[in-house]
Structure formats: structure tokens, C-alpha cells
């Protein structure tokens, strides 16, 4: 065994696979090739970014969070308020929203460091509910149930105005998604990322090899919050409004489902899950608009009973 064997093996994970550029090229091609689908591409890109941010926390660090919508929502409202009161520049707005979400993420990270899965579930859920309540009560700022509407943003990069067909929006979202995805990708393949996986797999041993567990979790939670905030900002900026819906529990629940379908712990899981979920949702809501949540529920139940890792291998479904 030569020296190259070990190093090559380690680097294999971080090397860009051949299919990856193809995948992204295809993604960027869709709004041009199928202009009528630009709007849904935009939605998928936003939700994929949201899912990737949760994967950092859930898939790579093992923190079960049911309230990730808190950061999405904060990003969304920050972007809305920034546009309304400070400047319609989408880029500044995006950065400010990420910053706000990061601050909340940093503060909230201290609540998920200790306790059982149930405690963490409760605390994360609680945070999202608190923000929902606050947004509801302070309706002079947030517009209450109506939300903040009719926002107009300046053109992207000074040149590309947001069009009704959603083409500029979809490219804007795809670009932000790709940029943050690349960052996330480097993070998970770095030594830092490896320490996160160690914390997830065996926190006791992680401590016993000198990893400062709390510091690492605080860091990843803050980063993930910033990314979720970016997704929220994109949501507001590409749709022109922000409402209480951004904090709703179903957002966090849908997100978990996406990540689980796509697979946790490999980043593309969030993207794949987002694509599958959104397309499925589109299809099912047009078929049974009222009861699509029933089919979603059934899908979840079957998914778990069959086994998450066996979902993509139909030949294992009936083995015991």
C-alpha cells in the first residue's frame, strides 16, 4: 500500500464527481429551455437551500430540529423590512438577512447543546412558535396576518429586473443556492465537518478525543441559520411579500420530509428531496387540492415502516 492509497481514499469524498457539474448545468438550463417552469424552479431552489441548511444541523451534526423555520422566517421578514425601510437593493438585503439569522442562530444554539432528543425537539419547536407569536402580536411592524406586501426590489446585479415570468428570480435563487452549496460542501468535507460527524456518531468519544463539542455545535448552528435565513430572504425577494406563513410548523415538517426522502448526510439529499417534494406537491395538489396532506401523511408512514434507507431500493421493500 503506497502513500497515495490512503490520501487518495480520503480525498475521494471531497473530489467533485463527474455528474455534479452536469446536474448543475441542467438545473441552470431549465428556466431557459422550459420558461413556463421558471417559477417552480425558483421555489425548488429556495427550498433546496433551506433543506441543505437543515442537513448541516440534522444530517451532519445529529441535532433533531423541528423549528428550522424560525431562521427562514426571520430571514424573510428581515429582507422585507430592509426593503421597506432601508433599501430595495436585493444583495444588501440578502446579506443583512443572513446576518440577522446568524445572530438568532448563535443565540439559539445554546439551547440545543444539552438534553435529550425530545428536549431539543421541544426547544427548537418552541423557538419557531415564539417567533410566530411575536410576528403575530407586533403586527404594526410585521403586518400581522396580512404580512408585508407589494415589495419592489431593485434589479439583480443592477441589470436584471425581476420579471413576472420568474426567470430572473429563478437564476437569482439558483446562483445563491449554488454559491452557498459550494461553501457547505467544503465545510462538510473539511476536518471541521469530520468533527461534526464524530459528534453525531458518538458524542462521548468526540469529547474523549479533545473535540470541543459545544463550540463546534454553536458554529454549525450559526452557519446553518445564516443559510436558512438566506433562503427566507430569497423567498421574500422573489415573491415580493412576506407573511406569517414563513414561521408555520408545516414548513419545518415539510423540510424534514424532504431531507429524509433525499437522504440526510450527503448535501445533495436536500436538493433531491426538494425537487421530489415540490414536484409531488404540485402534482398532488392539482389532483386532490384539499386532501393532499393525507397522501403526504401516508407517504411518511409507509416511508418509515419500510425504512428510510430502503426507500430508494425497491427490491428490499418486502424483505424482512
Amino acid at each position: 500500500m503506497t502513500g497515495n492509497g490512503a490520501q487518495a481514499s480520503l480525498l475521494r469524498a471531497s473530489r467533485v464527481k463527474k455528474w455534479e457539474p452536469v446536474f448543475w448545468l441542467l438545473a441552470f438550463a431549465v428556466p431557459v429551455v422550459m420558461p413556463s417552469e421558471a417559477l417552480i424552479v425558483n421555489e425548488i431552489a429556495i427550498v433546496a437551500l433551506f433543506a441543505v441548511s437543515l442537513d448541516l444541523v440534522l444530517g451532519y451534526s445529529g441535532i433533531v430540529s423541528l423549528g428550522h423555520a424560525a431562521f427562514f422566517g426571520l430571514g424573510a421578514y428581515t429582507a422585507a423590512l430592509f426593503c421597506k425601510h432601508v433599501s430595495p437593493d436585493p444583495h444588501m438585503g440578502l446579506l443583512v438577512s443572513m446576518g440577522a439569522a446568524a445572530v438568532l442562530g448563535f443565540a439559539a444554539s445554546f439551547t440545543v447543546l444539552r438534553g435529550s432528543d425530545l428536549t431539543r425537539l421541544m426547544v427548537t419547536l418552541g423557538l419557531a412558535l415564539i417567533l410566530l407569536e411575536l410576528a403575530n402580536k407586533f403586527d404594526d411592524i410585521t403586518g400581522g396576518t396580512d404580512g408585508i406586501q407589494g415589495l419592489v426590489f431593485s434589479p439583480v446585479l443592477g441589470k436584471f429586473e425581476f420579471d413576472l415570468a420568474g426567470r430572473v428570480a429563478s437564476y437569482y435563487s439558483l446562483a445563491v443556492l449554488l454559491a452557498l452549496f459550494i461553501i457547505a460542501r467544503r465545510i462538510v468535507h473539511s476536518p471541521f465537518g469530520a468533527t461534526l460527524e464524530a459528534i453525531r456518531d458518538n458524542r462521548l468519544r468526540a469529547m474523549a478525543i479533545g473535540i470541543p463539542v459545544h463550540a463546534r455545535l454553536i458554529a454549525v448552528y450559526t452557519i446553518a441559520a445564516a443559510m436558512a435565513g438566506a433562503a427566507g430572504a430569497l423567498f421574500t425577494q422573489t415573491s415580493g411579500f412576506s407573511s406569517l406563513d414563513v414561521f408555520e410548523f408545516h414548513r419545518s415538517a415539510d423540510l424534514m420530509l424532504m431531507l429524509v426522502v433525499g437522504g440526510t448526510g450527503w448535501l445533495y439529499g436536500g436538493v433531491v428531496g426538494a425537487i421530489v417534494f415540490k414536484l409531488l406537491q404540485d402534482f398532488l395538489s392539482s389532483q386532490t387540492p384539499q386532501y393532499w396532506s393525507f397522501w403526504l401523511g401516508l407517504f411518511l408512514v409507509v416511508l418509515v415502516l419500510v425504512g428510510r434507507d430502503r426507500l430508494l431500493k425497491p427490491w428490499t421493500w418486502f424483505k424482512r
Partner: protein
Amino acid sequence: MSGITKDIVLSAQGLVKRFGGIVATNNVTLDLRRGARHALIGPNGAGKTTLVNLLTGVLAPTSGRIVLEGEDITRLAPHKRVQRGMVRTFQISQLFASMTPLETLALVVSQHRGLGANLWQPLGARADVVQRCEELLRQFHLVEAMDVRTEHLAYGKRRLLEIAIALACEPRVLLLDEPVAGVPAGEREELLQTVAALPADVSVLLIEHDMDLVFSFADRMTVLVNGGVLVEGTPDEIARNDEVKAVYLGHDAGNEVAHG
């Protein structure tokens, strides 16, 4: 107590641990000399693992002091003790199920060399880290298994990895908690060889039930019974000690003391 003549690298002074009404650790004082091969023995339930947990900071003592290289670490967080050179292995292997031995060691070495907070470079980018991993893989006979996910490793290999991880932390003080526990006879030899080949400047505290290993390895022994120190001395002294014999023969009908 004072380290002037004997260069004590780790010292537990009057350690007491109470859980409600139970005294798990009863006023234990133990000095580990530099370069020692010190064994900690005692019947099941004597509190050996509890003592290791106290030394490593997993448990906080009810009273008492722990001094490492002259520094009082009684209140120091567990991961900081590791950073100061005190490393342990676990009786039941505590590994990272989804990572391969190579990835695990790369992680540990990176963390130890201060790269743990590096967000940007890929894990295998540093040649010196990779080199150290290869050394450890060779030393612990894990080369063929280096790309196998830990959850799929054979038990003996897992035990080897368990110790390799500890060594990857470049320990100055190594606490081995029953390293050959449950290892099938065929794989014990590998493990025993690596334990015997540990660097001479590493101070080792070994907890073991296997008396063959203990008597061939240790230059000093402490006997723990019911959470307290019964006696301490050289292996010869311990083997001849009547109280120790009573504890073991009274307990287990002598099969633990059997050594050929």
C-alpha cells in the same frame, strides 16, 4: 504526593464520588509515575471505570483533587484534559459507526494538530496528517480494513481501532480500560503486542481482568475494592498479599487469578 524524587505525572488525591447514598469512589489516592506501566485491578463493581471517568472529567468528583503534570485539573472540561495529554480508551468500544478507520484516524490526528476548526481544506489534504494515519494503520494492523465502515468491522479490529484512536491523540498519559475485553483468542496476540510496544515515555494506567496480561505488563499495581484502595505495590508484593488473595478467591473461585 510530591513529585520531587519520583516524577509523578498524574495524581489523584483523596477522590470521593457519591451517587445519592452510594459511595462509588472512596477516598482514592493514586500516583502515576512518568513512564509507568501501572495496573489497576479489582473485582467487578470495585469502581475502576468510575475512577477513570473521574480522572477524565466525565464525572465530577464529590471531593478530592486531580493533578496532571503539576496542574490542578479537577474542574477542567473533559476535552481540555485530552488536549493536555490525558487520553483514555473505553471498555466497550466507542467508535464512530459511519466513518472508516482511515477517516477516523484522519479526524483524530487533524483535531490533535489544531486543524479541527478548519472549515475549508479537505480532510485528506495535509500530507503529514495522512502519513501519521498510515503509520497508525500499519502499527495496528488496520491497513486492509482502512476503508471499511466501522460498523462493519470485526470485533478484534474494533478493539485495535479503539486503541489506535487513543494513540493518535499523542497521549502523555494513557488510561486503558480493559483493552482486550471480549477479544477472541486468535486476535488477542495482535492486541497484546501493540499494548506492549507502547512508547516508553507514555505513562500507562491499565485496567484489566486478564491476570496474564497484568503480570507481564505492569511494574506497579493498585488493587481497588468497593471503591477504595486496598493495597498498592509491585506485582510480586501484590501476588503474595493475603488480603488480595482473599478478595479474589473469595469472589470468583480463583479462575481470575489462574496464570500459567
